[in-house]
């Protein structure tokens, strides 16, 4: 028995060495031809048979360990997620994103209501108790407004637009992604984040309104704010969807349900990040620049918002041609 085991290992060793080299080659290539793929599947079958024998005949040896490692490597290569390339990305943006957005529509609406309600509450709070602004705004910001200036005045002279937009867009993307991810805390993270954002926005408007600067703040916000606030609402809606997957699991376990939910939302998260890059560029280059009159700012705001809606509904990208009967 012992000598036959050694003879078996001896006979199979060249095939395993060749397979090890083949796996290394397969791992280097991103795409495989049909012949290569079929050859790999056949090799996988043979290796599985050898591994089963090795587990029985020579357990705990280096040969068995080496075959285990070869098996896992080949398994990983064969089971890797197919890459759709640009076509795959286009398909995700055209087909998956609109479906998820439609599913999220009621949640987006509720998040919008929450933001408006908290904004109104913030406005009322500061309009009624002006001294509370110290809890929300920085000392420097308060001083600026009390002197009749907005903190955004001369922003471009202090910081170049490019740096400003990078800073803004990275911050906005962080906030939006955090609103999504914090849905993991059974939605409380997303809920509080939306509440806080609305509250701060309303409070800030109330404060500048008291000093006659509300119109100028509106002028600053309108070009980028429509997309930015909509995306924040979208992020909050995604956060609540994640929370829902944990509270009312749709799969066998909460973990599995969570994973499936995030997987469905992933393309929309990517699109939101891209939209915030656009909003950040507008906020860095257009919003603080006094050369842009109010009408053009409103036009930019509305156009970018419609572009966002088109992107979310999948209409921004050309549909595939349908065969005529």
């Amino acid at each position, binding site marked *: 028995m012992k000598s036959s085991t050694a003879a078996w290992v001896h006979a199979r060793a060249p095939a395993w060495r060749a397979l090890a080299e083949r796996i290394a080659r397969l791992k280097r290539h991103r795409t495989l031809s049909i012949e290569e793929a079929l050859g790999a599947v056949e090799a996988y079958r043979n290796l599985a048979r050898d591994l089963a024998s090795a587990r029985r005949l*020579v357990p705990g*040896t280096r040969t068995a*360990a080496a075959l285990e490692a070869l098996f896992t490597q080949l398994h990983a290569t064969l089971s890797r*997620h197919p890459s759709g390339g640009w076509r795959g990305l286009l398909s995700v943006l055209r087909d998956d994103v609109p479906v998820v957005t439609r599913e999220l529509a009621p949640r987006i609406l509720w998040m919008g209501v929450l933001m408006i309600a908290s904004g109104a509450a913030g406005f009322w709070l500061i309009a009624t108790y002006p001294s509370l602004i110290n809890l929300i705004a920085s000392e420097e910001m308060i001083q600026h407004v009390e002197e009749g200036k907005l903190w955004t005045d001369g922003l471009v002279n202090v910081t170049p637009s490019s740096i400003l937009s990078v800073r803004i867009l990275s911050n906005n993307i962080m906030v939006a992604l955090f609103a999504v991810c914090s849905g993991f805390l059974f939605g409380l993270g997303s809920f509080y984040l939306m509440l806080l954002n609305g509250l701060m926005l309303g409070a800030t408007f109330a404060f500048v309104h008291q000093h006659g600067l509300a119109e100028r703040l509106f002028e600053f916000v309108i070009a980028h704010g429509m997309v930015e606030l909509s995306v924040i609402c979208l992020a909050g809606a995604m956060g609540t969807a994640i929370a829902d997957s944990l509270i009312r699991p749709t799969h066998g376990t909460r973990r599995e349900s969570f994973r499936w939910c995030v997987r469905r939302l992933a393309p929309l998260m990517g699109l939101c990040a891209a939209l915030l890059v656009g909003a950040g560029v507008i906020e860095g280059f257009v919003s603080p620049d006094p050369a842009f009159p109010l009408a053009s700012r409103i036009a930019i705001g509305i156009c970018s918002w419609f572009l966002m809606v088109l992107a979310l509904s999948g209409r921004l990208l050309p549909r595939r041609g349908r065969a005529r009967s």
Partner: protein
Amino acid sequence: MDPEQYTIPGITGVDVSWSIAGPGSRSYAFIIDWHIRVVLALAWLVGAMLFTFGGLTWPTSGARPGASVVFVVFLVPLVIYFFYHPVLELLLRGQSPGKRMAGVRVVSVNGGTPGVSAVLVRNVFRLIDCLPMLYFVGLVTTFLSAQRVRIGDMAAGTLLVIDERPPPQSLELGAAEGEADFATRDLAEQILERWPALGLDKRAAIARALLKKTHGSATDADALDDDSLRVRLAALAGRR
């Protein structure tokens, strides 16, 4: 079933299993990666500022550099810092330099190399895992979860496993012929491989124990010196 093993049924009926990487390997890989990305980002920033502004300060007088130059100077370090993990995990198929040095790899729950979406999701959820500081949430989750995964891995359907790379000679063993059975030769090979790393007393004791087990108490193993023990082990392993 070993709780530190991740096993899935293979399509051939033969199970595929991986050793799960624990919080130690995970932290070790992260610390290496963190240092690499910080050094790279800082190197770019310092180099670009010296080249563009002539120093590590913002120019206060004279001609200011153009917006596009400034954009490149400050954007690249941010890109390096934030996209280091996702980009490298995609390019290196579930690994980054730190993971490679720590001998770990990210795999999806079906055992395959994770796709773009999974890699992005597991990295986006670092926002939660790093709360409140020093990856506290992520670390606690890896200690408590069954497969030692952080929240990002749960979201993406991935896990961190030990990247086992057997030495090529493991597959050559069958080609050798020796006096002992296969398992003993394998054991002798393993001892010989570790011979330089073991202390003199330890390796002598291990070698003598193996020789006695193979040849019985009649062997002269106790009388052999270090070199002779190594030669006898080599003979046992079938080395020529």
